[in-house]
């Protein structure tokens, strides 16, 4: 197969596969956080901080995939 074509397919596959699981993870984190805030509205700000931190960690994994895709595309 033409190397150019393989490169484009690799870039697309990297970003597609790399954002699937972080998306699921972020959804689950948000769900549990919303549930917990609903049960205990007083602790909302602590929960919010923990939620944002956990989402940042999960999003970082998607960002790693994005960086690999960008490096593949631009070099």
């Amino acid at each position, binding site marked *: 197969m033409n190397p150019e074509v393989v490169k484009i397919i690799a870039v697309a596959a990297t970003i597609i596969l790399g954002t699937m699981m972080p998306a699921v993870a972020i959804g689950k984190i948000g769900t549990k956080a919303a549930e917990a805030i609903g049960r205990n509205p007083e602790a909302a700000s602590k929960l919010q901080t923990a939620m944002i*931190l956990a989402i940042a960690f999960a999003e970082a994994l998607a*960002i790693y995939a994005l960086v690999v895709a960008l490096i593949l595309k631009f070099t």
Partner: protein
Amino acid sequence: MTGEIPIFLKAEPVFHLGSFTITNSLLLSWLILAIFGIGGLVLSKKWRSIPGKIQAAFEMIVEGVLNLMESVLGNRGEAEKYLPFIATIFLFITFSNWMGIFPVLGTLGIFEGSGRTFVPLFRSPASDLNFTIALAVISIAAVNIAGARRLGFFKHFKKFFNFTNPINFFVGILEFFSEFAKMISFSFRLFGNIFAGEVLLIIMASLLPYLAPIPFLFLEIFVGFIQAFIFGMLTLVFIAGAVREEH
């Protein structure tokens, strides 16, 4: 189309000081540094014991940040001790992200070489991996220094080299390597978000100029703020973890 859109992973060099290359992201980060330094000095001269409106607004912001830090660290004295470092990281990253997408700055540049290639004079500092890696190394170093200062040098590093039993030894080595993983994670999170934002804005501008970038500029304002907040919060949480006494 792909060959002509000027997206570079590495920051473009603008001029050279001897053998040291000055890139456009370095130039903008120097500019922000100058603004902070001079602005901070000038504003601190105007401090009044009974605050005027602007000072009161700043004091409210500092109070909010201190409350947030206190909720993570446990007590107010600790929060005040680490406030300068955390707030500097947060403000520096926020302004470097916002100045990177500032409307006119992207058009200032110089034409270089015989091919009349356009080199922009300013670029988001965080879209340069050097900037983010430097900040990540400084943050993790600060976390370990804070832990060593609070707990004592040997007690802090005994967390990593723990010879009591084989399981603890293994866990300690894992913790040691995870410090380096944290450095990589910090730097790539910030770099990936901001560089991807730049790429997004350029592609949107090349598709539908003037109109398509507008919602993405709002997104980039938001992302710039959130990534700075996350960087600061994670550093704070790691400091809190390193400084906490073992139970």
